[in-house]
């Protein structure tokens, strides 16, 4: 119920929302959980295994129970913790993991079958018959398991990533974090303060503490104002720091989650990568539960959550309460409940006494005080109605209540301190794990390291803040720690009631009970990690923040070991769950990876090109014409045009590396298998490079532009890797050489002009003073020219197609214009643009190796290039190319193939067998690497790697392609199908 007054909500701003279709009203400043409580809603969800009714346990991200499906349609967010959802107008949420409805859930029957469904039951059954697993058992389990439902639709919202840098990062804006921030800010450091909540203050918002005479929340607001006055301070509310990585922290800013929908131009969430010279973890602590029968019933809450709902949200979670506490601060709830008009029926404390004033306060509100007592069972199907307590001497009492506050002690929030590997240590003083040894760049302050009282938290925050300022090189500023009253932090470790009763949960969401822990111990799953993996303890969406340590304590008792000796639970990023979309940012859909476009891209588009992805590049694959039936017709036409007239192809994507220096030639000799130092100026040469392990790495044409200047081309796919390799060879292997290199891929726009009429075409482009006649500019010539009336360009007479051909390069700004000029000049000659597919047809007809053959597993000899391997020099890969398996004459070698039935279509990837050999692994003798329909031969042709291929020309072999139903005969032939003597190159 909503209390008449109080809280930090804005009662002037009512907000309407729906839960399971029913309308409710809350206020600005509410969370979904507080608004539900204010509306008297207790049943919120169903548990994972037994589908038990569940309510709201906590008021923060540690919540195990109150999971809902938030929003609708494509924006549906399953498993959303109602305790972290900021209420907004029109919010819609639904309960999950129940069918047909929240109050009547068929699978609640699982609860009856609980004796069968103990931890790990599935490992012991469902084994027979084997095929029933996938068909029957597993689908049943999968449907019953899981929690909420994904939308199944593309996420319509945008996500962003951003980088931030600071001297001091402070995580958590409770009293400790605020003081640390103030210290750092006053020392002039650049500070970032991240707070996951939408209001700063931490527990100050939830308690009725006073600081320096002001209510804690007001003090926090004042401090926030002061912090904002420093230009070097950035305050980030709604931002969870969720991971510590090497050298950076990751944080999630929930930019628009408190709105029905992100505003225009705003992302839903933003992933921050924060580089901080120092980090202060001031993340507070989480109150934990106690194991007793029925401790999961709606209406059972942590005592601190009750205070939060009362003090921060003006919401009373019940009418008649009982408190089960083993801490002094649990007693403090009494006053808050009284203020909220909730009757406190009883306080149950397993300790034998507490401070007098706590007792008298309890008595003053009429509560019965039960020392040395324990709650052993909570009753009530859809919410607690009664509890049974056992008192010294075995007396059993029953108490009516619709609200039970539980305080089992506090767990410091140390997750972030462990991400980089620091092991937490057990503190007997506070009966909790505290941070272990940390890196020098991280400190912990306040409740996060067990400084639980407000006074301690403030003082600790201040002193850590000051120390950090100094450590990061700033002057120590003046700082007073505000005065506050003392606060009780006494507690007694108490983990479970005796008898523990049925359904005494240690993991509420995953339905792990004290009995399961017992069973795990009995079966040998005693190590903390075995316990976890066997029972699923701590693996739910709350990561066991309120209960796992209880189970570990039970296990320690069962095995007679001290806490922490049989394993310390390991927290892992993210500290609180983070949407996959946020990690991806804008890198999705078409923006998944950047794309690269050549300067001629728009021209190609205008020509109707169909593009294909080659690495990040988009390359024109072919240029269909309206009259053409399919791509094959188009590609055949393009290839035929090159063989009969002239075609132009954008080859700008090839890697280009400018290599200069006195030793450039010597350097190339060491990276290529063949010799380049003897290449005359003005000439180009085809080169092959190996990896040091002797396999082919890449190939390409390199030209000599001057004595000390070479220009290398690489394949498109390997451009980056080759550049890196060359730099390695130079900087690491041979730093003595005078050679400089830099990528020039982007500077040049380069077109192949290929076909018998290519010279004629060029004659219309290249300026008249340049002799490009066959004699004046022979095959493999490479020179600087001018074109179109003085435009500098580079002309290479090289050919991939086997025709008379050139490549012409211009500075990229002229790339578009050059394509158009070439087309214009070629129009009378029947020019056509051709794409990568025709390029591939032409090169297959010529038996040139390309990507499918340069697959990282082939040697130069496999590709028939062994004659290029110089024996007069050392080069990368030479030695290991001599390894026995690489030098084996039986290796598959590059071979040509034609179908025996000329109409058969070949497909790359088919394996090759002797004609009459059985299909078996031993007889597998190679595969087809590349195929094409050859317009020149009017049949499909292929290249492939066939064992001893070169000596088998004329043999009929079998191509076997079962994944596409192919099985046909091939004739082995030379890989050069067209113009085997290469005469056309020289015309």
């Amino acid at each position, binding site marked *: 119920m909503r209390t008449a007054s109080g809280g930090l909500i804005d009662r002037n701003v009512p907000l309407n929302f729906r839960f399971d279709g029913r309308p409710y009203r809350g206020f600005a400043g509410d969370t979904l959980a507080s608004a539900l409580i204010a509306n008297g809603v207790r049943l919120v969800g169903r548990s994972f295994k037994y589908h038990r009714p569940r309510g709201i346990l906590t008021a923060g991200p540690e919540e195990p129970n109150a999971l809902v499906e938030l929003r609708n349609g494509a924006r549906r967010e399953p498993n959303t913790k109602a305790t972290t959802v900021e209420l907004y107008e029109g919010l819609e949420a639904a309960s999950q993991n129940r069918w047909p409805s929240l109050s009547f859930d068929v699978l609640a029957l699982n609860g009856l079958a609980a004796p069968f469904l103990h931890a790990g039951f599935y490992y012991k059954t469902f084994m027979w018959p084997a095929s029933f697993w996938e068909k029957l058992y597993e689908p049943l389990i999968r449907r019953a398991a899981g929690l909420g439902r994904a939308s199944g639709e593309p996420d319509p919202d945008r996500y962003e990533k951003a980088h931030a840098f600071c001297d001091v990062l402070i995580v958590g804006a409770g009293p400790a974090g605020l003081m640390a921030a103030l210290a750092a800010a006053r020392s002039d450091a650049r500070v970032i303060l991240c707070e996951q909540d939408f209001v700063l203050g931490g527990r100050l918002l939830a308690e009725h503490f006073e600081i320096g005479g002001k209510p804690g929340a007001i003090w926090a607001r004042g401090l926030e104002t002061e912090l904002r006055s420093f230009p070097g301070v950035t305050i980030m509310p709604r931002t969870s720091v969720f991971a510590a990585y090497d050298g950076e922290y990751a944080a999630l800013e929930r930019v628009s989650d408190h709105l029905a929908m992100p505003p225009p131009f705003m992302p839903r969430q933003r992933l921050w990568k924060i580089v901080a010279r120092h980090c202060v973890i001031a993340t507070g602590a989480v109150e934990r539960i106690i194991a007793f029968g029925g401790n999961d019933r709606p209406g059972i809450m942590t005592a601190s959550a009750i205070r939060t709902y009362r003090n921060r949200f003006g919401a009373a979670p019940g009418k008649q309460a009982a408190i089960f506490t083993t801490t002094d601060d649990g007693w403090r709830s009494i006053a808050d409940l009284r203020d909220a008009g909730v009757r406190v029926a009883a306080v149950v404390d397993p300790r034998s006494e507490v401070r007098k004033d706590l007792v008298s306060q309890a008595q003053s509100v009429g509560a019965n005080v039960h020392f040395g007592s324990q709650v052993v069972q909570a009753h009530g199907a859809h919410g607690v109605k009664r509890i049974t307590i056992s008192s010294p001497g075995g007396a059993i009492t029953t108490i009516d209540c619709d609200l039970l506050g539980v305080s089992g002690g506090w767990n410091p929030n140390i997750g972030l301190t462990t991400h980089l590997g620091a092991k937490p240590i057990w503190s007997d003083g506070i009966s909790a794990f505290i941070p272990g040894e940390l890196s020098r760049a991280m400190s912990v302050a306040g409740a996060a390291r067990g400084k639980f009282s407000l006074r301690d938290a403030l003082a600790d925050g201040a002193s850590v803040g000051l120390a950090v300022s100094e450590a990061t090189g700033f002057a120590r500023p003046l700082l007073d720690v505000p005065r506050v009253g003392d606060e009780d932090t006494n507690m007694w470790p108490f983990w479970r009631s005796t008898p523990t009763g049925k359904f005494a949960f240690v993991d509420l969401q995953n339905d792990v009970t004290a009995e399961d822990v017992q069973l795990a111990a009995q079966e040998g799953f005693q190590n903390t990690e075995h316990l976890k993996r066997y029972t699923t303890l701590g693996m739910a969406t709350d990561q066991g923040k309120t209960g796992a340590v209880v189970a570990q304590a039970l296990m320690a008792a069962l095995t007679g070991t001290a806490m922490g000796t049989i394993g310390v639970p390991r927290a892992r990023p993210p500290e609180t769950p983070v949407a996959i979309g946020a990690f991806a940012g*804008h*890198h999705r859909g078409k*923006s998944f990876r950047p794309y690269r476009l050549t300067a001629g891209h728009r021209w190609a588009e205008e020509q109707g090109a169909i593009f294909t992805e080659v690495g990040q590049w988009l390359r024109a694959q072919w240029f269909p014409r309206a009259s053409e039936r399919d791509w094959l017709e188009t590609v055949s036409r393009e290839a035929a045009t090159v063989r009969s007239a002239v075609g132009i192809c954008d080859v700008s994507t090839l890697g280009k590396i400018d290599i200069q220096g*006195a030793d450039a030639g010597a350097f190339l000799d060491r990276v290529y298998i063949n010799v380049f130092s003897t290449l005359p100026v003005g000439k180009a040469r085809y080169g092959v490079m190996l990896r040091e392990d002797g396999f082919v790495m890449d190939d390409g044409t390199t030209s000599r532009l001057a004595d000390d200047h070479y220009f290398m081309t690489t394949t498109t796919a390997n451009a980056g890797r080759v550049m890196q390799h060359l730099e390695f060879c130079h900087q690491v292997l041979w730093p003595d050489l005078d050679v400089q290199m830099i990528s020039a*891929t982007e500077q040049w726009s380069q077109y192949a002009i290929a076909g018998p009429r290519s010279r004629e075409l060029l004659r219309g482009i290249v300026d008249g003073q340049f002799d490009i006649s066959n004699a004046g500019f022979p095959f493999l010539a490479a020179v600087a020219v001018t074109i179109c009336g003085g435009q500098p360009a580079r002309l290479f007479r090289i050919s991939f197609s086997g025709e008379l051909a050139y490549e012409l390069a211009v500075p990229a700004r002229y790339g578009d*214009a050059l394509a158009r000029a070439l087309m214009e000049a070629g129009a009378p000659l029947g020019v056509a643009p051709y794409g990568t597919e025709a390029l591939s047809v032409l090169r297959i007809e010529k038996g040139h190796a390309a990507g499918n053959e340069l697959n990282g597993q082939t040697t130069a000899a496999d590709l028939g290039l062994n004659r290029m391997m110089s024996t007069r020099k050392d080069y990368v890969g030479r030695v290991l190319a001599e390894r026995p398996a690489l030098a084996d004459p039986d290796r598959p070698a590059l071979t040509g193939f034609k179908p025996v039935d000329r109409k058969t279509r070949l497909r790359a990837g088919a394996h090759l067998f002797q004609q009459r050999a059985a299909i078996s692994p031993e007889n597998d003798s190679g595969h087809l690497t590349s195929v094409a329909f050859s317009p020149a031969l009017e049949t499909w042709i292929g290249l492939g790697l066939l064992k001893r291929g070169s000596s088998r020309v004329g043999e009929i072999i079998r191509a076997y392609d079962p994944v596409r139903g192919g099985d046909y005969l091939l004739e082995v032939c030379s890989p050069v199908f067209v113009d085997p003597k290469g005469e056309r190159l020289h015309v």
Partner: protein
Amino acid sequence: MSDVRLVAQPALAEFVFSERFGNPAGPAGVTVVLRHDLRIASVIARRGCEAELAVRVERTFEVAPPPGPHRIRKGNLTILGIGPGRWMFLQEKGAPEFADVLARDLKGLASISDHSDGYAVFEVGGPLARQALAKGVAIDLHPKSFGVADAAVTSIAHIGAMLWQTDDAPRYAIAVFRSSAGSFWHGLRDSAAEFGLTVHPG
């Protein structure tokens, strides 16, 4: 011989620019100018020639090449340190012969390559420029750690880039490979959308 004259196309010519993107309210938080007037050449010292090269550059341009990841400007010349013994020389309103002239001037001491066509250069300013850039740039642009005397070669949302600050407004220049200009622009546009963005195609 052809009577066709080749007409230059700036990088990004394929993108249609409107004046204003993103949030239409109020003055734009981010302004972008595309620079097409820059001539760019890499200068890599020949082996063992760094000192002599510095002298020659200073004699020729009245400014020494900065030894670290720095930027220096003199007249219409900007020099960016992009690696040990490696610089990018940029000339505003430069002539096509820039690289050739450099090569002549520095002959024997450095290897020069022309990159005037290899980059698209974005100048990003406006009151919220730094906030917008923080969404992609992984280096600290706070005045305490980056200023007009600095240069960086880095990667911005998977795209390689050279970055320098042109004035204390602050305005930044970002050079990305020409082929990636479109992707870079899309990222920049999205990053600046919440602040409002105006573009001058330069």
